[in-house]
C-alpha cells in the first residue's frame, strides 16, 4: 500500500480505503472512490499540484490531499 503522492508519472493504481476525514467530499463526488483506477498524468513544476486521471475524470489536486489517498499499484511489467 502506498499513496497517490508517491506515484510516478504515468503510473496506474487502484484506490483503496479512503478513511481520512481530511479527504474533501468533493473528491469523492468527482469519482475518486475506492476501487477506481487512478493514473498520475503529470506533476506540476515545483512538485505540486498533481494532474490525475481517475476513471476518465481529469482533475488536479494538491500534494497534501494526495498523501491521504491510499492506493495499490497495478503491475504493468
Amino acid at each position, binding site marked *: 500500500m502506498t499513496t497517490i503522492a508517491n506515484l510516478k508519472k504515468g503510473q496506474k493504481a487502484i484506490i483503496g480505503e479512503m478513511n481520512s476525514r481530511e479527504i474533501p*467530499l468533493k473528491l469523492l*463526488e468527482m469519482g475518486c472512490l475506492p476501487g477506481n483506477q487512478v493514473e498520475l498524468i*503529470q506533476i506540476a*513544476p515545483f512538485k*505540486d499540484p498533481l494532474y490525475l486521471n481517475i476513471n476518465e475524470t481529469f*482533475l*488536479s*489536486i494538491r500534494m497534501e*490531499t494526495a498523501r491521504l489517498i491510499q492506493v495499490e499499484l497495478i503491475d504493468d511489467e
Partner: protein
Amino acid sequence: MSKQINVALIGNPNTGKTSVFNNLTGLNQQVGNYPGITVEKKEAIIKLSRNLKAHILDLPGTYSLNATSIDENVVIELLLNKKDKDYPDVVVVVSDIENLKRNLLLFTQIKDLGLPTILAINMADRMDRKGIQLDIDLLEERLHTKVNLISARKNKGFDELKQSIIDYQKISLEPCLEASVIDKAYFESLQKAYPNQDLYKLWLVITQDVNFGKTNRNRIPATSEFKPKSDSEIKRLQQKETIKRYQFINATLKETLTKDLALATGLRAKIDRLLIHKVWGYVIFLAILFLIFQTIYDWSTYPMDFIDESFLYLSEFVKQYFPPGMLSDLISEGIIPGVGGIVIFVPQIAFLFLFISILEETGYMSRVVFLMDRIMRKFGMSGKSVVPLVSGTACAIPAVMAARNIESWKERLVTILVVPFTTCSARLPVYLIIISLVIPDERWLGLFNYQGITLMLLYLLGFGTAVAFGWLASKLLEVDFKTYFVVEMPDYKLPIFKNVVYTVIEKTKSFVFGAGKIILAISIILWVLASYGPTEEFRNAEEVVKSSVDLSTMTEDELEAKISSYKLKHSFIGYAGRAIEPAFTPLGYDWKIGIAILTSFAAREVFVGTLATIYSVGSDDEQTIKSRMAGEVNPILGGPLFTFASGVSLLLFYAFAMQCMSTLAIVRKETGTWKWPLIQLFGMSGFAYVVALISFQILK
C-alpha cells in the same frame, strides 16, 4: 391569462450550462447579485407556448448538493426553501455526454428531493466522434425522468427540451435512491421524529450545517426517538451516500451507455504535453499574458482616444448651444466628463474579458491554475490570480472584475485587495513627468538609461508590493469557508463565439451600471469642489486678475489661464489643498502638489492636468509644464521644489496610494461592502504617506 412557471438550470461546472442558458434565453437575460452576497444571479423570462411563460434561473455550477462554497450554497438554499419566490416548479439538470457518470451524481440528488427533474445531456454532437451510444429509453426508465439530448454548440435539441419543460407535470417523482439505504436505523429514527417532512430534505439540512460548520443555525434538535450524530459520523455518512449513488449510477450506465474506447483521441494528451510542459508551459503562458497586456494597453488607446474626444466635443456643444449658467456648467463640465470617465474604461474591460472568456472556454485556464498554483499559493492567492495581477498593469478596474473567476472567496478577496498596487497605465503620465524632472537623462555604463531603469523599478515595485501584501493579507484574514483544491481539468474545446460575446457584453454592462453610478457621483462632487469657492476672491476672480496684470501685454489665452489658476487656488479644493499643506511639507510637497493630489483622486493622470491649471500654463503640453515645474521653489527649504528627494517621495506616494475612486467603486461592487474599499483607501494611502515621508527625510 398566461401562466408562468419557475425553471431552475443546474449542473456541474464545464458542462456548457451557460451556453444552454444563452441558447434558451437569448439576450433578454438579467444579471444581478443574490441579496447580501456577491454571487452572480442570471435569470430571464421566456415564452414557452401561447399561454405558458417560464422564468429561467441559471444557478451557479456545482458538483453536488454538499455545498462547500458560497456559490454552491445558493443552489441548496433555493432547493430547500419552498417559500423562495424562485423555488422551481421544474429543474433542468445540464450534463455533458462525456462526463455523464459524474454529472448524474448531482442529478440523482436533486431528483430525490421530489422535484420534477429533466436530464438535458449536452454536447450530444460529440457522440459519434467519441464512439458513444446511449439507450435513451432505458435511461429514462431507470432514472424515472425525461432525458433530452441537446447540443448548445450546434443549437440542436432545444425545441424538444422546451417541450419537456412544458410537460413537466408528467414527470415521475420517484427517487433514484431511498435515503434510508445510507443508514437504516438513523433515517428511520429521523423519520419517526419528523413524520411530515421529506426524509432526504431533512438529511440535507443536517449535512448542510455540518459542511459549513455553522453553529448559529437551527439545528435539527434531538427528540426521544431521534439522536443526532456527531459531525464526523455525518461526514462518513455523506461519503457513504456518495458511494451508494455511484453504485446506482454505475449500474444504470452499464446497461445504457457504450463507449468505443478505440475512438478516444489523444488530443488532450498532445496539447497538455505542450501547454503544461515545465519550460514551454511557462513560455506560452507568458506569451499569452504579453498578448493580453499589449492588447489592453495598446489597442484600447484608439477607442479610448475616440471616446475622450467625443465627450470633449459633446461638452463644447452643450457650452455653445445651452443658455450659459450653472445648469449648463454642471452638464458640460460635471456630468458629461463624469460619464466620459466611466465609458473610457469600456474598451479595456471588453478586451480583457474577450481574452479571459476565450481562455476559460477553451479549458486553458485550468492549466494556468495547475502551472501557477504552487507559486501563487505562497502569497495567499490562487493560480488564477495571475491574470488579474498582470492585467492590473493596464488598469485595476477590469483586473478586479477578472478576480471573479477565482473560486475560493479568500483567494479572490486577497487578489482584489492587492491588485491596485500594480502599476496601472494612469500612473504612467505622473511617473514620466516626475522622472524626467528629477532623474538624470544619462546612461549607466553607457548602456542603460537611468530614467528607463527608474520606470522599470517602479513596475517591479508595484508587482512586488502586491505580492508581499498578498502574503500579509492571507495571514491576517480569517474566512469561514475551508476550501479544498480540487480542480477539474476539462477537455480542450473551441470557444463558442456567442458565449464569448455575451460575457463581454455582460461584464461591460455590470461595470457601467454598477460601479458607474458611484464614479459619476464622486466626479460631480469633485467638480463642484474645484469649480466653486467660498470666498470673495473666488467670486471676483476675473476682476482681481485683470487688475493685477498688464492687460496690454497679455493674449486672451494667457489671461484665461491666469483666471482659471486663480479660481482653482480659491476654490473649495484649493483651500483644502492649502489647509493640508502642513501634512505634505514633511514629504517635500507644497500646497499646489497637495491640490493636484486631491483632484487626482478622480483619476491619477489628472495630477498633470491640475498642475497645468495651477501653474496657468494654459496648455497640457508636457514640455511647458515641465519647465514650469523645474522653476518651482520650495516654500520652506528654498531651492528647487522638485529635487531628487521630493521626486522620489512623490513617485513612491503615487506607487502606493489608493488614488483612484473608480477602483474603490468597483471593489465596493465586487465585494458587496464598503469595508474592503475603505481598508484599501486608508491602508494603502497611509502606507504611501509613511514611505514617502521616510524617503524624503532620508534623501533630502
